[in-house]
């Protein structure tokens, strides 16, 4: 069940998109400032727990165990949520998930929903699908609001407007927020206050909310949402109908397992001991109608891949983005997916396949420096998966010239006599070696010179001097 998620229209390959981003000095300054700040703070928050590596090891094992028995735990979750008065829906792909949510909203007679930031609903393009059904979705997370009002795209998992500085945010609010106070300054406190006023009436009157989920506990049917602003609590608590869209990999087996993730996630994502608000609820709560939409959308494809499967451990903390030298320079938009950065480079091509230019290029959007693996709280070996995906990209799209060259090399290397002959020829013609290669191989020499063959091969030198014993 291959997933569908929006590849942004006409999205160029990563190197093309990144080239433009790297030339944008304001963007680079905003990103360097934000990721630099969070890197230092995260390191402090992690250093405070001497058992960090052990927590990380347990988290990895809990997630791997869950994935190894995913059918069992999903059935258990369904049973427990249903038993607690909720309704569980299953969606094989994005279109189906969107149709389920739209039908649920239509059944309430409402035409507006409030939303808590959710990677899953971004992945399936829910807002656009609801708009087509005549339903307006209001993003309530501050950064999502900045993106929505700025008619922009998110560029970070945790802080979708990370590419905007405070002055730009003030300008967006002044331009697009009808009730923005006159003389709004760029102080973060004033900007937050403006968002509070702008959304309050919406929260108090909303009858339907859509959320994602950070975790679901199979044995109890409990859903968990971590957030900072209180917009999550507003959406989860006040509306009469709550619809939660969740990827099938977000499960943990038991309530006690949360003790690991509630320590790892806040410190990895916002570098806090604990995020301001975490909400947990089980089934229909305080008289609400509760619907849980379980989403596959390519996840079973990832599960089927023994190397790539570890990407399903991801808890969307975004620590890998903040430590990545490529992300810091290229920004999130170049990745052409709701999932940017190192985790996006392994998740998007696996969820969507490598059909588009951007997805085929994503496994190369990395220097393989390994900082992402080190930062990952669930120990996803992102470089390992990248190398595996690169090997597959090569397998599926080998250049005919490469094949010819490799065949020729194979023929030469198989026979010592042919190799000696080839090496002598190379030495003799070394002065004729061009600096640049001709034809389709030219690109390789755009930034490099061809190395000159040595005047004499090692084999020839060994023979002539008897291994250095004769001058």
């Amino acid at each position: 069940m291959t997933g569908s998620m929006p590849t942004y229209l006409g999205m160029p390959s990563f190197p093309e998109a990144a080239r433009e981003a790297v030339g944008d000095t304001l963007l680079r300054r905003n990103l360097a400032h934000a990721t630099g700040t969070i890197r230092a703070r995260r390191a402090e928050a992690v250093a405070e727990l001497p058992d960090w590596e052990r927590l990380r090891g347990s988290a990895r094992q809990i997630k791997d165990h869950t994935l190894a028995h995913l059918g069992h735990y999903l059935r258990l979750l369904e049973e427990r949520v249903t038993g607690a008065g909720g309704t569980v829906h299953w969606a094989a792909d994005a279109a189906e998930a969107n149709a389920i949510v739209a039908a649920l909203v239509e059944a309430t007679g409402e035409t507006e929903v409030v939303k808590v930031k959710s990677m899953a609903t971004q992945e399936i393009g829910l807002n656009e699908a609801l708009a087509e059904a005549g339903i307006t979705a209001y993003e309530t997370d501050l950064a999502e609001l900045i993106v929505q009002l700025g008619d922009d795209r998110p560029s970070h998992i945790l802080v979708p407007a990370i590419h905007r500085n405070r002055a730009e945010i003030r300008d967006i609010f002044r331009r697009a927020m009808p009730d923005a106070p006159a003389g709004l300054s760029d102080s973060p406190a004033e900007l937050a206050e403006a968002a509070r006023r702008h959304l309050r009436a919406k929260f108090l009157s909303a009858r339907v909310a859509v959320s994602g989920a950070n975790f679901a506990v199979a044995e109890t049917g409990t859903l968990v949402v971590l957030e900072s602003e209180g917009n999550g609590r507003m959406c989860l608590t006040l509306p009469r109908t709550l619809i939660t869209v969740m990827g099938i990999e977000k499960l943990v087996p038991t309530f006690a397992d949360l003790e690991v993730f509630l320590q790892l996630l806040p410190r990895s994502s916002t570098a806090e001991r604990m995020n301001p608000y975490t909400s947990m609820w089980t089934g229909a709560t305080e008289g609400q109608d509760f619907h849980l939409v379980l989403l596959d959308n390519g996840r079973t494809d990832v599960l089927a891949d023994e190397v790539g499967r570890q990407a399903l451990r991801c808890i969307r903390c975004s620590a890998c983005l903040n430590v990545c030298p490529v992300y810091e320079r290229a920004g999130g938009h170049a990745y052409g997916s709701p999932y940017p950065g190192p985790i996006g480079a392994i998740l998007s091509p696996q969820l969507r396949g490598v059909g588009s230019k951007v997805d085929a290029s994503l496994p190369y959007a990395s220097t393989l420096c390994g900082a992402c693996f080190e930062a990952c709280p669930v120990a996803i070996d992102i470089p390992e998966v990248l190398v595996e995906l690169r090997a597959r990209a090569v397998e599926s799209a080998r250049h005919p010239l490469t094949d010819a060259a490799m065949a020729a090399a194979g023929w030469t290397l198989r026979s010592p006599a042919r190799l000696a002959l080839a090496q002598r020829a190379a030495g003799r013609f070394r002065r004729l070696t061009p600096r640049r290669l001709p034809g389709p191989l030219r690109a390789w020499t755009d930034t490099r010179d061809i190395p000159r063959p040595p005047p004499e091969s090692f084999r020839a030198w060994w023979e002539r001097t008897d291994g250095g014993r004769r001058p």
Partner: protein
Amino acid sequence: MNSRAVNSSAVNSSAVNSRDRVLARIDAIVPPRPAAEIAAGRAAIERDYLRRHSTGDVLDLLADRIAHYRATVRRVTPAELPGAVAARLAGRVYAVPEGLPRAWLARADPARLVEDPPVADLDALDGAVTGCAVAIAETGTVVLDHGPGQGPRALTLVPDRHLVVVEAARVVADVPEALERLDPARPLTFVSGPSATSDIELSRVEGVHGPRTLDVLVVA
């Protein structure tokens, strides 16, 4: 309209098919195992992390960690509590949930207390005063399970101020101990400082949609 009516509509028939399709695909990739084997696998997961990180006084640590979030926090004796509550409520109108110990409010002005207000009235109030189920010292977190003395979830969300009284017996050292004490069948709200955001340049700024003032009184 009852949203459950959707169950009998067209959505449902395709959803049922998708349920079977998704589960069949999962079962083909990771085949079902006997329950005992799954339980044994779960028991084999290494959990060699610490149950608690600090060994010192949990009340001192709690106060320190809550203050770090720029909430106000004060340690009081049971005898001092009614006066401290009254001082924090002074001049403002507060919501009082059902089941809150009356003794806590002994010195407060009853004319400025609203008992168990409906959700629609909450936006007009200045704050809410509650107890809590558990408090976590290591992370400076107060956990509400919305039982007696804590009100429904909206009560401590809509008004701009939240005063929490934390009794010493409810304080645990760390996250694992807190979860042991909590009942997941109840709605749970973990509160660590006032409402905040890191969305502008990744710096924490207090005050977005939840209460912008969090006052904590630790009673011992």
